């Protein structure tokens, strides 16, 4: 094993395993607030840094996990490509490994897919201190179980993500943002109706009586859609700033949410079918993803919020809150809980990594 950074990590994992130490995998540390509370000794991945290979004509980039997300995005931008799932950037220190482990996606999620849809391969350091590679650098690959994609959203519970190969796409040639003054129910109806038509829909957001819609694709397709949909065209610079703020969760809604959380409320991320009617919760809501993601600032009891999400056919994540005692992630059905428990043990028998970060353990 020539790589000293990886060698160090392997030694740390071996030692931790031997003496029962819990390790808290740490990339940029910008998402420590997300998920259940981190526990254990920090295990920094920053030394696993750099883009290993990038060939724009292959639409694939292979990058080490400790690489800053900003560095990866800069390299892609230079070649006119991007991460189409628009991962939120919570700070300059955010890493690619953290992006995959958290599995969070931005405004284009419904149209373009999520993190796991772009993971092609990964190298994982598991709880036995073995370095394993799954998937690869090609678009189509069904050799063995798709462990690489399982890592997206795993919150580091299966091991240290050392390197990932991601599918990337060209930046759309044209983008236009439209705005419509409509109430929530009408916004959801419009989004789902448009979704069934051949339109270059790329992102949507509804808040406080305004629906904002982003079209992206070939110039001709975007122009035709603008003519067809009507609405008010938003100034491109203002539109870019709006979508960036939404993506990075720094816009007005999220500033208000952070304030409300400080005051004892909770920010919930409700993941529901796109067609679900407005949730019967009288609090502030921001609707994204064509209706499939609904942000809720609420002081309502967790049971009530989770019941509303379940009734709608989805689930609710306690995204930001000072009090995480209701559990961050919605409880699993009995068979899924059992499979998940056994999977954690299959990758990390001594539960060295990010113990309890997804669900409390033991």
């Amino acid at each position: 094993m020539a790589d000293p950074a990886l060698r160090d990590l392997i030694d740390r994992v071996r030692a931790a395993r031997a003496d029962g130490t819990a390790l808290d995998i740490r990339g940029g540390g910008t998402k420590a607030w997300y998920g259940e509370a981190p526990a254990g000794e920090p295990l920094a991945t920053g030394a696993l840094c750099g883009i290993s290979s990038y060939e724009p004509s292959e639409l694939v980039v292979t990058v080490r996990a400790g690489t800053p997300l900003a560095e990866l995005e800069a390299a892609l931008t230079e070649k006119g490509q991007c991460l189409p799932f628009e991962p939120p950037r919570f700070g300059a220190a955010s890493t690619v490994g953290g992006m995959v482990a958290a599995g969070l996606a931005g405004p284009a999620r419904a149209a373009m897919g999520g993190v796991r849809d772009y993971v092609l391969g990964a190298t994982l350091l598991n709880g036995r201190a073995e370095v394993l590679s799954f998937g690869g650098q090609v678009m189509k690959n069904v050799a063995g179980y798709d462990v690489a994609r399982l890592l997206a959203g795993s919150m580091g519970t299966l091991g240290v993500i050392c390197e990932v190969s991601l599918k990337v796409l060209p930046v759309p040639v044209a983008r236009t943002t439209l705005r419509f003054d409509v109430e929530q129910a009408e916004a959801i109806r419009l989004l789902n109706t448009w979704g069934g038509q051949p339109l270059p829909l790329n992102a949507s957001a509804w808040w406080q009586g305004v629906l904002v819609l982003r079209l992206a694709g070939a110039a001709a397709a975007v122009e035709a859609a603008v003519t067809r949909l009507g609405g008010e065209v938003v100034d491109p610079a203002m539109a870019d700033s709006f979508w960036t703020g939404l993506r990075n969760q720094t816009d007005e809604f999220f500033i208000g949410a952070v304030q409300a959380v400080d005051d004892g409320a909770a920010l919930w991320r409700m993941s529901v079918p796109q067609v679900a009617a407005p949730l019967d919760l009288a609090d502030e809501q921001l609707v994204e993803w064509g209706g499939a993601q609904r942000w809720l600032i609420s002081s309502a009891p967790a049971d009530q919020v989770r019941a509303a999400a379940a009734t709608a056919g989805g689930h609710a994540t306690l995204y930001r809150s000072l009090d995480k005692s209701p559990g961050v992630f919605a409880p699993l059905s009995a068979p899924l809980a059992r499979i998940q428990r056994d999977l954690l043990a299959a990758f990390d028998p001594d539960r060295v990594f990010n113990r309890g970060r997804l669900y409390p353990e033991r």
Partner: protein
Amino acid sequence: MNAPLPAAALDRAARQREIVAALAPVVPSHALLWQAEDTVPYECDGLTAYRQQPLVVVLPETEGQVAAVLKTCHALKVPVVARGAGTGLSGGAMPHALGVTLSLAKFNKILKVDAYSRTATVQCGVRNLAISEAASPLGLYYAPDPSSQIACTIGGNVAENSGGVHCLKYGLTLHNVLRVRGFTVEGEAVEFGSLALDTPGLDLLPVVVGSEGMLAVTTEVTVKLVPKPQLARCIMASFDDIRKAGDAVAAVIAAGIIPAGLEMMDKPMTAAVEDFVHAGYDLDAEAILLCESDGTPEEVAEEIGRMLDVLAGAGATRMEVSKDEAQRLKFWSGRKNAFPASGRISPDYMCMDSTIPRKRLADILLAIAEMERKYALRCANVFHAGDGNLHPLILFDANDPDQLHRCELFGADILETSVRLGGTVTGEHGVGVEKLNSMCVQFAPEEREQMFALKAAFDPAGLLNPGKVIPTLQRCAEYGRMHVSKGLLPFPQLERF
């Protein structure tokens, strides 16, 4: 004539009686087959070179019966091999000699097609094309289109993570499935994913999709439907050199274009299909590219223009754009009929399925040409060039044992060369039993052990489709030894028990 039956056969008969007696109370009598003449049709899937008669075939009609069959088999520790239409090309549905084949053919109902949510919920035995047909009046369709789509079922597509000619732009099965409902090996109902776009906890859907029936039994699937493009047009471009055609593929992508389809055929394949469909292919070309654009009329006009520029710049010797839908379908007719056309020019063929980085297309083609000489067999090539997925068809006569043997060596050589070029042994057909040895080349022992551990988390007793996908350490050791000592690959001996 009265020699006693061997002990193994007696054991087998006793085991069969035991399983039939246990299953008889939980399914209707017509749903339970065990007489040899009734179970013969199930002895193989689309990979006909590998056959095994199952001990018992059961065809449940309700989810309750599926649960009961699984509970019964689990209690008796009987292997269970789920089966859809049996069109798989890697032996994934090949029966287990001491197992039950669980045919889900009767789960053939489309439960809901909903225009507003753009989803269809169907039972696992519904055919791929039937979903698009049901959605068509709503202006929607199901995007993944494996060539076998008139026959293959969505349950099988989920098992294999099937692709098709449009997956560069529209994704694989995984990208188009929201929810899989099924049963654990113990017979407990379980759902992976939902109509929401993500899931709490570990995201198990990408592991279940493509797991070749080894983690759970699928009974119901909810898929995404997408709007039918208003228009599709296709460019047929000829190249006088394989390398130029390979470079043209990379040039199209590098220009920022994601074609709806991007396929390549080499000269032998073009000759074979032209003889079969008479589509007017350029028989002088060393390679033909089919490059498709879809979308609004404005979008297609713009994109076709850009594609023509790139292909001309890459040295295309002849280009023709489809004038109407009839001509577009004609362009595609040869590509879609590559397999039957190969069946006409050779008694048998073996289809490979590796994927390589696009930029290595020319390298693998030249390597395959070299192998044709080495193994003294012909090979015709079709590719999903846009995503680097190769389907070399090795032509041989299965009645000649030496040809079959050379064909298998040829196939293994292609797969190992693909891995060496940075690719994978299977892009969309699955490992099944066919590519078990090649998995030894692609994965290290620790990686294979991790996959076994993953399977055990879903199926602790190891009863769902055992012996497929992941080769044992012992098998790989044996394969490696033979490989090195003889300089030739062994005839693969299947692990049947």
